[in-house]
């Protein structure tokens, strides 16, 4: 077992419900505890609105907990955001540099990777054109090609394993899976149980903002299925 990189203890995160002077707060995360160790690939499962994305942004350090505590070893931690900082009137090349900088890369690192970004995105000469002229699919190909270059100590992924048409989905999915198998520490949020089963060693199950169970994937999936499809005869 690797050292503990990030540890959450009874973490709660609240948002203001409305922009009113007397606006109440709602707790997107109520009480979540987890440990992330170096080299571990942790999957997060749970129904819609369970707080999975909020949890990921809390681990990323974007959201600060309103209660509970979070301990973090001095590691870089990046949420994989597609098309972060994209500006419509700039070329694909300029947007790649901009988005790469936003995702934490140094400028010379992005410059060195521009040829491979261009190649992976399959944009050809469009790479030099303003992205305002791109189709939605082209935009996602560029966005993914930039995002896959980012190499933080802890990679946080929210459902963006594969994008684009069927062919590019296969290619991007394969690139992402190989990134995850390279021994990086990863936290992956997904609705798709198969994805999590294929890529993660450990799984945490979140329900109504609370961590229900954190264990190896077989144990968690068994409990999760029992909860979703209770045996006939029980209510």
């Amino acid at each position, binding site marked *: 077992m690797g050292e503990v990189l990030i540890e959450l203890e009874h973490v709660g995160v609240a948002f*203001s419900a409305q922009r009113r002077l007397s606006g109440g707060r709602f707790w997107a995360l109520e009480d979540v505890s987890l440990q992330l160790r170096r080299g571990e690939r942790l999957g997060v499962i749970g129904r819609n609105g369970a707080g999975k994305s909020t949890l990921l942004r809390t681990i990323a350090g974007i959201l600060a907990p309103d209660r509970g505590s979070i301990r973090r070893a001095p590691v870089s931690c990046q949420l994989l955001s597609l098309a972060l900082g994209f500006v419509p009137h700039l070329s694909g090349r*300029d947007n790649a540099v901009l988005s790469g900088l936003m*995702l934490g890369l140094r400028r010379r690192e992005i410059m060195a990777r521009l040829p491979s970004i261009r190649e992976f995105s399959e944009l050809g000469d469009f790479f030099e054109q303003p992205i305002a002229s791109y189709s939605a699919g082209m935009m996602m190909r560029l966005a993914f090609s930039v995002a896959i270059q980012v190499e933080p100590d802890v990679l946080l992924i929210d459902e963006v394993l594969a994008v684009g048409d069927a062919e590019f989905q296969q290619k991007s999915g394969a690139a992402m899976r190989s990134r995850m198998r390279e021994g990086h520490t990863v936290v992956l949020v997904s609705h798709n149980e198969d994805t999590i089963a294929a890529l993660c060693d450990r799984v945490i199950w979140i329900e109504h903002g609370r961590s229900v169970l954190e264990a190896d994937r077989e144990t968690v999936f068994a409990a999760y299925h029992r909860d979703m499809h209770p045996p006939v005869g029980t209510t």
Partner: protein
Amino acid sequence: MRQHLIELVLFSTYAELRAEAARSYLGLVWWVLEPAMMMGAFYLVFDVILKSGGPDYLPFLLIGLTLWQWMKSCITHGGYAIWSNLGMVRQVRLPPLVFPLIAMLSDTVKFLFVFALLLVILWCAGYPPNQAYFALPLLFAAVFLFAAGAGFVVAALVPLVPDMRFVIEQVLTVVMFLSGVVFALDKVPPPLQQVMALNPIAVLMDAARGILMHGMWPNWIGLSKVAAISLLACWIGATVVAQLASRYPKLAS
């Protein structure tokens, strides 16, 4: 980490300027044409129609408006920058002050274009270059610090109270008229004059006009006081932003 942020701010500034130039047919030309049109409007009203100007009015007005537009755009664009980038703030962990800085730097680049045009006009109008020009970088530094100080404070608060935006524009218009931008403060009754001379913007305006029109070195003591006040405002703004940084990602935009 720090070097990465410098690269991010500089490249984002370049990207913002480039995108802005690409958004309209005339592109870069608007950076100069828009302020020129505004100056024309003020000249028409205050000199041609109201005849309230005086012999040196044209250079007086142009210098005042050029500097004021720079300050104002830094304060408003910088001031709204965190609020208008809340979408990004929710997705990535960056110091929030990055956003006002990018806005202020790109406004500064645009100001330099307008200022170059201003110099040409002044030379043609009989106000040649002089050795007091060497004081311009220090004057610009003081103006930028002042605008940044005000902009940071506004930037810290607008995400929490977006309603402030409707007030700020009006307040800035009043401040412009009270700061000797379009008419000289010696036109105001004497008791008020003394109060208004304490206004940091009036000090900056005087210094700029002294250099560009009369070849006079600025009042260094006055300029230092303005710089000190501005640094204090920058510090207050940056501190408040740091205090509120954890709240921004949780706000609705």
